[in-house]
């Protein structure tokens, strides 16, 4: 499967807007991930070709920026804050409950491919501590309690 034309168009627009191929690399990876959830080896190579850079240079960038995923993720990505303000408001109990319910740890995806759990700080949600960002639109949720998790996970896109 080659790069879908709408994505290629967006990447070319990013090159125009941000000053050429290199300044558009991170945005290109982000665009791919927004469309497909993660950046596969095949897509990385296609984007590199479109931009006129080497796959190695693009991967060098992809592996630095923590929110570019180079492995498949679940339909719903949960970024759970492990910062101090959330910890002070009970984040450990929420973390334990999420892990128990999903049966996964940080950096892992459930066997059915529905959820990926990632620790992340700070989410800028300390006024909603303990907080998480859920789903493709990174919706901020909180304050979370262990008993809120069932409805939250079921409602997640």
């Amino acid at each position: 499967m080659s790069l879908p034309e709408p994505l290629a168009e967006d990447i070319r627009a990013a090159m125009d807007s941000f000053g050429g191929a290199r300044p558009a690399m991170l945005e290109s990876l982000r665009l791919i991930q927004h469309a497909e959830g993660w950046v596969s080896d095949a897509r990385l190579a296609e984007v590199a070709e479109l931009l006129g850079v080497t796959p190695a240079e693009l991967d060098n960038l992809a592996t630095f920026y923590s929110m570019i995923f180079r492995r498949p993720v679940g339909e719903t990505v949960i970024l759970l804050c492990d910062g101090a303000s959330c910890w002070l408001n009970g984040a450990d109990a929420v973390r334990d409950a999420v892990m128990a319910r999903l049966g996964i740890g940080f950096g892992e995806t459930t066997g059915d491919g529905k959820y990926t759990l990632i620790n992340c700080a700070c989410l800028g949600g300390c006024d909603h501590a303990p907080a998480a960002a859920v789903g493709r639109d990174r919706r901020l949720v909180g304050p979370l309690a262990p008993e809120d998790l069932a409805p939250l996970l079921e409602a997640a896109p």
Partner: protein
Amino acid sequence: MSETPMTGRARPDRTPHSLAEWRAEAGYEAVERALKLTPAQVLDRVDQANLNGRGGAGFPAAQKWKFMADPAEAPGTGPNYLIVNGDEMEPGAFKDRFLLEALPHQVIEGAIITAYATHATVAYVLIRDEYRPGIAAMKRAIAEAEAAGLLGRDILGSGFSLTMKVKPSAGRYIVGEETALIESLEGKRAVPRKRPPFPAQSGLFGRPTTVNNVETISLVPHILANGPQWFRALSRTEEGGTKLYAVSGRVNKPGLIEAPMGTTARELIERSGGLSGNGKLRCFQPGGGASGFLEEAELDLPLDFGHCKTAGSMFGTGTMIVLDQTACPIGVLARHQRFYARESCGWCTPCRDGLPWVARILDALEEGTAEPGDLEILRMTAAEAGPRGRSFCDLMGGAMAPLATGLARFGDLFEAHLDGGCPIRRGVL
């Protein structure tokens, strides 16, 4: 003229204003005023207002702007750049999220005025990827302003032109460091640059560049609208303006409070519904994760850059983290150091190797597996790796500030952790 000029027009649900709604609330009047002055006059007003940068370092905004050469006089070709830094990720900070989401036209106004004063004709707003509502609000507001001739060529017939773009980021705290941010915009790994040269001499694509925090930019229009004397009078100290304080941790109603610069922690905690937990203060960090601990005795300290520094801490982002007596500062430090270790770009050895070491020791203290010699390692690292100049940027130094003050202020509590783990959690203290 409001006592909360920066946030007074924001809506409780954070719905941003359309351009028409913003103009109905005196929006863009400051821009009209500024563009009738010369860039040097605009810079003078901001200078007289004593506006200190709100991103963490507190460097006077006008001083930073003064280093910006006229693009015609800088070697090479290309524009001057303005970068609005919205890569907010400091533990405890959630103020820029609000300003981007709820008040995007205020950010544009500030960017136009700042760009005008610094001869910049291209402005980037870099926003962390998780702030989707902020990214959307800024993009929409920029499109509206462009359509109305408030951005683009010959703004309001002044002859001044400015192109403004939103660039979402993709994680990594270090992107918020201004030279790392410039590297990131150029399409590189966000590794800080050695200074000099400073960004004003050689910044984005080698051109003169100013990097200002979202909050700094959001304050600029008010200086032009109401004058530098008024702006200074908003503050209780020598440092001008109001501050968008944030209070989180062990308080009943964590949130944002716009208040005069120099407001005390006592007042901010009261306005945040008072302490939660057992209601008795143990300590607080006045300016986010990288600021040194303060205690009861500093509750009436006017919180600004100067006073926090004198007290042995740092005002940083002005976003407080509060601990009551049932909260352990060593546990807080452990979370902070794990975060800084994870977010180090890896370039400088003290930071890349020192921070994970410190984080492991703090975890061991909490779990009760630490050994007496470990405290010596913490002291040594704070003393040897903390000072400025041991690494390219201030990440390591910033991370060591709460550790050093924690060791100095809570030495007994560190020792008590050697005897089976956190004594607060075990209920023996």
